[in-house]
Each structure stands twice: as C-alpha cells, then as structure tokens.
C-alpha cells in the first residue's frame, strides 16, 4: 500500500475516533472529519447518525440509495448535545496540553482581540456534555500552545476544576496531519498515540509548542485497509477533495 496518501491515513485515523460509539450523532467539522465519519458509518460504526448539514439526517450521506431517517433542527440538537448522544470532532485555532481549545479570539485582551474568530459556538457545551475529538489540519506551534487565549472547549484541567457537573467530559483523540494524540496519561496530559508513516517524532515535537508525553518509540498510525481505501477513493471522495485539506507532496 505504498501509494496511500497522508490525507487517506488522516481520514482513517479520524474515523477511529467514533469506533464503539453506537447510535449517536457524529458531528464532523472539516472536510477530512466529514469523510472520516462517513467511512466509520459505512464500515465499523453503522449506528452513527449523520446530518446533511441542515436538520435532516441521512442513512447514507454519499450513497445513491440514501433516505432521511431523522429530522433534528437546532432546537432539538441541543437536547441531544446535553443528553450526551453525540460525539463531535471540532477544529481548533489553539489547543493546549490538557486539551483546552480556542475558536473564539486570538489575543490576551478579550475586549479588543488581535483577531476575532467565529466565537465559542457550541464548544463549551459540547465538551462538558459529550465526547469530543479534534482535527488539526496543520500541526504547528501556533496551534499547539502552552496556553490558549480563550478557553472555548474545556480541557481535562478545567473539567476537573468544574467538579461533578463536568463528569461527562471526555476528550478522545486529537488527529493532525502528522500524528494521532490522546490523553491516556495519569494526569491527562496530551501524549503521542502514533505518528503517521513518513513523519519523525522530532517533527512532531518541533511542531508542538509544549512538551508532549509518549515521545519515545511511538507507534505508527495504521494505514487504511483495502476496503477502506476503496471506499475513500471510489465512493466517498472520487474527486479527491481530501487533498485540499492535506495536500501530499509525495506518496507516503
């Protein structure tokens, strides 16, 4: 499988975030996560609920024989968010070692930010109510920082401080264009779970603005199998839009 691209590895790695989730809403933000959620649904996570971008949920968002199976307008969506029947994969403009995420604003003065971003959106409510993963298309020290400017999605340290009300907080995976990270350490600091084929651990360390755990002999991110590759290339993304988010300089 030497012709597997980095984008395809990222899709398969993102899909893994939803493994074992059962019948919940999968809300992917971004092109690679959207492809990944559909791959997961078509293979090992058939129970996932996927929206058409509005309020309708489709049995097979890319398929020729797809049907509306549910209607969940925003009003109802927040019911499911707060009920916990959802696993979101969000992006982040900044992310720290405990998984605090910023999508609100850059700069230390919130009243006059250097750069206004989209706003906290649903990140505070998502992270305190149901499983959350992150997709970072450009792993760099600008994203992986010591301290985020505006905590939008909450990390493990903030969740601990919030007490029993935060008992549903769970950050699963952080998938980037270089590696898969998680928080499987005693105090829930971010660690390297695996690095993508063709990436060195030194590259990941250099692209991260804080000290990562698990830097000695990390595993290699698995490549998608034959059926997953076929689905990605022929069914989910025949036009190759995945290359726009993770361009491949060359094959892995």
């Amino acid at each position, binding site marked *: 499988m030497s012709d597997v691209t980095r984008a395809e590895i990222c899709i398969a790695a993102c899909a893994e975030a939803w493994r074992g989730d059962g019948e919940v809403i999968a809300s992917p933000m971004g092109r690679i996560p959207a492809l990944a959620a559909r791959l997961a649904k078509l293979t090992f996570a058939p129970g996932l609920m996927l929206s058409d971008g*509005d*309020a*309708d949920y489709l049995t097979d968002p890319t398929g020729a024989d797809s049907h509306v199976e549910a209607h969940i*307008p*925003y*009003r109802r969506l*927040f019911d499911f*968010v*707060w009920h916990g029947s959802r696993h979101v994969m969000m992006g982040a403009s900044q992310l720290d070692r405990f998984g605090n995420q910023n999508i*609100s*604003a850059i700069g230390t003065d*919130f*009243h*006059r*930010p*250097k*750069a*206004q*971003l*989209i*706003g*906290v*959106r*649903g*990140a*505070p*409510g998502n*992270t*305190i*109510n149901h499983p959350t993963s992150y997709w970072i298309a450009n792993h760099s020290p600008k994203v992986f920082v010591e301290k985020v400017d*505006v*905590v*939008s*999605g*909450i990390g493990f340290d*903030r*969740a601990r*401080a*919030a*007490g*029993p*009300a*935060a008992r*549903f907080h769970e950050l699963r995976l952080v998938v980037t264009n270089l590696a898969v990270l998680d928080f499987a350490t005693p105090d829930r600091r971010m660690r390297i779970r695996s690095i993508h084929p063709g990436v060195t651990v030194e590259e990941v360390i250099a692209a991260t603005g804080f000290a990562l755990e698990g830097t000695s002999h990390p595993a290699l991110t698995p490549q998608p199998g034959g059926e997953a590759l076929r689905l990605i290339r022929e069914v989910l993304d025949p036009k190759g839009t995945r290359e726009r988010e993770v361009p491949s300089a060359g094959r892995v």
Partner: protein
Amino acid sequence: MRDKRMSVDDVVAELRDGMTVGIGGWGSRRKPMALVTAIAKSSLKDLTVVSYGGPDVGMLCATGKVRKAVYGFVSLDSIPLDPHFRKARQQGEIEVAEFDEGALQWGLYAAALRLPFLPTRAGLGSDVVTNNPELKTVTSPYEDGEELLAMPAIHLDAALVHMNRADKFGNAQYLGPDIYFDDLYCLAAEKRYVSCERIVETSELLAAGPPQSLKINRMMVDGVVEAAGGAGFTSCVPDYGRDEAAQKAYAAGDLFAEASR
C-alpha cells in the same frame, strides 16, 4: 382580529436608541435583512443586538448601530468569518457577551418563560464565565448538590424575524429546514415584528406546509411586514437559496449589496 400589517419603515419608527433587539435566523440563513438594512440606514444608535450572528451583526456593526453584541458565533456560513464584525471587535468598538450557543437558547427561553435564569452545564469551566463576570452559578437544592451555570434570562425590547409566509394577523410559517430560534425571540420580546416573503390568507397557510410549520402565531406577533426577498442575500429556502455573489460583495465592503433575484 387586528390587521397587523405595517411597512419596514413603520417597524424602524417603533424602535428607539439603546434598545435590545433580538434578530432571528442563523448565520447567513433566513435573516430579516430588509428590516436590518433599514435599521442600518436609520439614525438609531446604541443598540444591543442578540443574534445567532450573520451579516445582520456585521452590517449593524459597520454602520455604528451596535453598542453591545450578544452571540455564540458570528459567521456567514460559506464565508466562515464576517469581516465587519471582526473589524469592530479588533478595534474595540463594541461590548460583547459571547455565550455557548446552547446557553444562548437557554437565556432566550428563560426570558420567554419569565424565569430569572435556567441552569445548564454549557459554559462551566470555559472562559465564557471569565469573560462575562456577571454570570453566576447555582447549586442544586437536591441531594446531588451539583453546581451549575445559572444562565440569566435575555429580555428583548424587540424581536425581528423573517418567515416564508404569514397572514395579516401574525400567524407565520417557515417552510425551510429549521425554525432556528425565531419563535423564542418572539416570546422573549416586548415587541415582535415578523417580515415574510408573502402575506397570504389564513385559509391558504396550509397549502404550503403542514400545521407543524406554523411555529409562530398571532399571540407572539405585533407587526407583519410583507417583504419579498426580505432575507436579502441570506438563504430563505424553499423560496430562494443564499446569493453567494452578493454575500461576497458584502464581505468585500459593499455593505448593502443586493441579491440578484
């Protein structure tokens, strides 16, 4: 029953400086842009704008109408960030209250139900609490003793929403994929103004959609404005989709870019 038809200008004439105005829709979807544009061109000032923000927030910021913005996000959907809102923020021109978007719903719902607050987890532990120091928590009086965020009611002086159809009495109908929070805005407000693509007879409402599409009724409405194309370049399906070219022109600085339809 009272005929509540009025013009766009009649609505603007009923608004006052310093009012808190809730604007329906979501991002760049079914925004009452005919009403918003008229406010932008009026002499009104010092408004507090409550919105699931799109070009409504950006346009009112760019025209100096906004003292404070209350929102969870501001986005044009196909263009992720509104440049006019960003400029106002980055120049420190406006006050803001940025909430989790689910908590924002809770604030409107509390106002609608005449409750001082509603409890939620959404916001706890995040900088929503730090950046809005007036927010308080509440401890469950039951044996769980859980400490939750007490999301305060967001009372509106006026609500502006755009629907697909309405009758002259204020029974209004959405035909698109989502009502968003438009009915909550109406219940949370003192004065409620509904613009619509077309005013029809009450007897004609069910020709376009099922009874479930009548989420706003005359108890919740003070004024009805017929404004074809009144969502501007934002989407108002099934009547029309978003005019991406006009939205691009708006984002590039042509504030009152008109949809070509």
